[in-house]
């Protein structure tokens, strides 16, 4: 699958579409802007980010928009809306997205996962009251993250350059047709403006913790966002396969040879460690099976508890509204 990822021959009709999309998008950034930026920064153009000048200004635009519109609206939403409503809204849109997850499961040839996610959608739409409650997760049907951009990657469409899109944020050129397909497969796209606004608000509110973290911890928020976005997407595409993790984690350090002349582990120990890992995995599987019953019975307790929480947060919301009135 990854072999194909790098070969340009694999690109199919979707690839042609993608190239034309890229041309349109790159056309937006006039060459003058890019060159002017590059002269100031004086850093060689990175292979993955050839439109850095354009992307940086788009990033700035999105950031300013978020500071003046996104963040205040999202803060107000998070402050005034009871937590159970927030969770309900989030679950509702997440459930609609599961339709798209199922489609992409099957398009990537993940039959088992596709069947599971179909079950997830069925359970949450019925017992979960149109998706307001995520009953399926409580029952052990985990949420999966699949989208059409990942499917394109599995099919061998190359990633293409990194792009920052207005309002939408980080993407790659592969993500553009991906995003269009995902939107087309999402019922929320067809119901009209208010629902879409709530969907955007929900997405912004859900990303609140991450956005705050970047603000605090990043030395260069643009580079930080780009690097973590590309790595995170890659992790989703490969479903966290360990070879990819190895490549990302196992850095070369030229000092190693000076300080530690010999390899610490011999080949024998390597194979032993591998055996231990297999055993640990099996033990975990057994433990998971035994835990299933406890989890299922526990989920009913949790459901009743969430009703209590709901009643409680109603009270808090009421107090907050009174506070606003008093001001």
């Amino acid at each position: 699958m990854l072999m194909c990822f790098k070969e340009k021959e694999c690109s199919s009709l979707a690839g042609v579409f993608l190239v034309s999309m890229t041309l349109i998008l790159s056309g937006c950034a006039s060459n003058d802007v890019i060159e002017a930026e590059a002269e100031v920064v004086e850093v060689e153009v990175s292979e993955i980010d050839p439109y850095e000048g354009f992307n940086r200004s788009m990033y700035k635009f999105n950031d300013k928009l978020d500071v003046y519109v996104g963040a205040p609206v999202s803060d107000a939403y998070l402050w005034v809306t009871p937590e159970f409503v927030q969770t309900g809204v989030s679950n509702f849109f997440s459930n609609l997205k599961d339709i798209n997850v199922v489609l992409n499961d099957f398009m990537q040839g993940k039959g088992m996962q596709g069947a599971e996610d179909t079950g997830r959608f069925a359970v949450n739409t019925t017992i979960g009251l149109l998706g307001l409650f995520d009953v399926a997760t409580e029952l052990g049907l985990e949420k999966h993250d699949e989208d059409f951009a990942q499917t394109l990657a599995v099919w061998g469409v190359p990633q293409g350059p990194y792009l920052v899109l207005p309002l939408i944020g980080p993407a790659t050129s592969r993500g553009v047709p991906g995003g269009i397909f995902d939107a087309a497969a999402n019922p929320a796209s067809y119901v009209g403006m208010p629902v879409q606004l709530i969907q955007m608000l929900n997405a912004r509110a859900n990303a609140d913790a991450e956005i705050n973290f970047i603000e605090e911890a990043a030395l260069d928020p643009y580079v930080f966002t780009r690097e973590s976005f590309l790595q995170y997407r890659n992790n989703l595409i490969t479903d966290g396969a360990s070879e990819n993790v190895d490549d990302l984690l196992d850095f070369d350090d030229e000092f190693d040879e000076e300080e530690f002349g010999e390899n610490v582990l011999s080949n024998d120990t390597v194979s032993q460690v591998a055996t231990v890992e297999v055993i640990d995995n099996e033990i975990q599987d057994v433990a998971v099976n035994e835990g299933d019953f406890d989890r299922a019975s526990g989920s009913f307790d949790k459901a009743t508890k969430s009703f209590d929480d709901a009643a409680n947060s109603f009270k808090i919301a009421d107090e907050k509204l009174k506070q606003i009135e008093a001001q």
Partner: protein
Amino acid sequence: MLINKSLFACLLILSFCVNSYTVTANTSEGVEKQLIPVADAAKDIVINFQNVLLDVMKQGTSLDFQARSNLLEEAILKSHDVIKSLRTIVGSKEWRSFSEQQKNQLMQVFTKFIVSTYASNFNSFSDESFVYISEHTTKKGNIIVRSILNIPTGKRKKVTFDYALKKNADGWRIYNIAADGVSDLATRRSEYRRILADPNGFDALIAIINKKNDNYAKQ
């Protein structure tokens, strides 16, 4: 159930054999002074560190930022190879070009930055737990320990943490962490090298990190 139990027994015996074999192999080579299996030493470092994290989170409300930092600094220095991380982030060529004083200065603010990031983000507890998943050895002979952080009340229910450990003179030490496939060193490397590419890069880098540290301390 019967199958499960017999499977358990087999696995226990098998794992015991593997462990004892590892111990004898090590003593004969004289690599390890203590009789600890190589694999478990790396895993223990990670688990002990995670336990400190959970402890600090549980005391999040009673400890202030400085108190949390003190506890975490001790735990990080015991389990991480901070200098190796930093060297990899800035690149060996740049690192060699620094004076001893610059190296010490950067090391000092960088350590404080790592500790502050932890102290600021791990400040409350709502039933989070770490679950050990697996470990394996990479082609270069380092060990990667995979674990999952479960966040029952969070919007994201779980985050996969991969810890990369390398053996130095003190034993296995963490030098890189990836959360859901986002590698800490890779991300920092892009940021730091970008700043260092500037003619006044070193001073700029120190200034930015100091500013971040001040912001954390104000919380």
